[in-house]
């Protein structure tokens, strides 16, 4: 039983990690990003090939790939983000879904559909605490998800830029009247979300195989985690990750591994019926950007 709980919590941390970037882009900015999974897939491949050719550990290359992603979105992809921010939600769905498909097929063309993985010194290392066992790589992701959650929470809550981001999301026109260059805010926040997502991708590589369509599984979970936790709530993402992770671990054992998605979707629906703004969502914020 304690093994199940530990596995579930570690898995929850991993789910939170892949969702934090989406929470910035979708939860805070309200840009529907259906290419989120493909962002993870691309960064996993980047980490993979860096390891393959240069023998650079994915934990190290993640620290290069993430800032690089940030810079790319601040410069080369800037017009793309501006266009996306100015589009309707439906437009964003089409645009990002299209980008996702293009990225998937590019990966398929360039790298084939082979399952690839790295074999670092620690990727098969396991830690035993009494009867409970878990892999080191998962513990690393879990701890980093806590670090990212705390850092981002304080950044959004306390820093002036964080307040600027929240103000812009709550009322874009008035934000302009305050002297905020709202496009800059959108591009910056999107780039930050993409960078955190890329970082998460690097962390996943020692745990999962990478192949062109792996993103879909992650994106589905990330969307559920973000909505479950509450759009724009950073602690909510962590909580949402734990709920899904624990549900998956427990239902996999007590019911059936093939039923886990059914179970967590039922829980997802139940929580949304009871708390439409999500577990930690501020009441009323779920409608921002819709009205």
């Amino acid at each position, binding site marked *: 039983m304690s093994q199940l709980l530990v596995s579930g919590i570690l898995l929850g941390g991993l789910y939170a990690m892949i969702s934090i970037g989406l929470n910035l882009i979708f939860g805070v900015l309200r840009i529907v990003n259906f290419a989120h999974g493909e962002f993870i897939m691309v960064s996993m491949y980047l980490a993979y090939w860096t390891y393959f050719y240069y023998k650079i550990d994915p934990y190290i290359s993640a620290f290069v790939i993430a800032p690089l992603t940030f810079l790319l979105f601040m410069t080369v992809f800037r017009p793309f983000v501006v266009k996306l921010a100015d589009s309707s939600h439906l437009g964003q769905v089409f645009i990002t879904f299209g980008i996702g498909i293009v990225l998937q097929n590019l990966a398929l063309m360039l790298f084939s559909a082979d399952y690839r993985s790295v074999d670092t010194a620690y990727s098969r290392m396991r830690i035993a605490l009494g009867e409970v066992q878990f892999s080191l790589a998962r513990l690393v992701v879990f701890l980093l998800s806590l670090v990212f959650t705390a850092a981002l929470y304080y950044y959004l809550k306390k820093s002036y830029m964080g307040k600027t981001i929240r103000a812009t999301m709550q009322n874009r*026109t008035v934000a*302009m*009247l*305050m002297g905020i260059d709202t496009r800059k805010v959108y591009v910056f926040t999107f780039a930050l979300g993409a960078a955190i997502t890329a970082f998460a991708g690097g962390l996943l590589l020692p745990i999962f195989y990478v192949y062109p369509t792996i993103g879909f599984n992650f994106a589905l979970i990330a969307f559920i985690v973000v909505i479950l936790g509450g759009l724009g709530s950073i602690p909510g993402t962590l909580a949402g990750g734990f709920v899904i992770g624990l549900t998956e671990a427990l239902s996999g054992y007590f019911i059936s591994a093939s039923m886990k998605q059914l179970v967590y979707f039922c829980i997802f629906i139940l929580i949304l019926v009871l708390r439409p703004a999500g577990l930690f969502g501020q009441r009323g914020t779920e409608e921002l950007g819709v009205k």
Partner: protein
Amino acid sequence: MAEPLLKISNLNAYYGEVQVLHDVSLEVYPGEIVAIVGANAAGKTTLLKSISGLVRWQGDIVYGGRSLRGLKPNQIVELGIIHVPEGRGLFPFLTVLENLEIGAYAPNARKAAKETLEKVFRIWPRLQERQNQLAGTLSGGEQQMCAIARGLMGLPKLLMLDEPSLGLAPLIIRDCYAAIEDINKRDGTPILLVEQNVKLAMQKADRVYVIENGRIVLQGKGAELMDDDRVRKAYMGI
């Protein structure tokens, strides 16, 4: 009189293909309170939005000898033109204090933010009491206070207020206008305000422009217009 601080000449403004303002000319001189009055959908708000750079316009808007043509909203704010929008436009899920801090976004305002905040709290001690409350939970009158205070945080050289009396009880309106007159008297900040309450506007403003279907149809000193038969008939129902 001195040179106008703000001079709008032959302004035409558009929402997409629809022309909302026709050939509007208007001036604001240093130290004045100028009111724009008119019915709903006459184009009052659009006029303020044009000055703030939120809508597309033709003609010319000159502020402090400099044309605002092609400037983005944030550049206009940096010039000291602060627009307090209709319906307060507070950030509902930010606290009162955070709203005020964001009001001082422009670089020069941010440098002075600490002192300005003290000043604002001296004017409205109520806001200091409620500084950690979410702005969306304030009462209507407090929200209007907070919105004007947030405007002051931007160190306005020209303060534009869109319908400050909207939806407020008469007593609160009185307080609100007392505060506006105070800002104007104490700091000499010129104020351009849009008001649906014609009588109130004519009492409080030095000069008034009457706008109808996107055109200025009358202008003059507030006190004089009050005696104008057309105004009395059309707007005051007397």
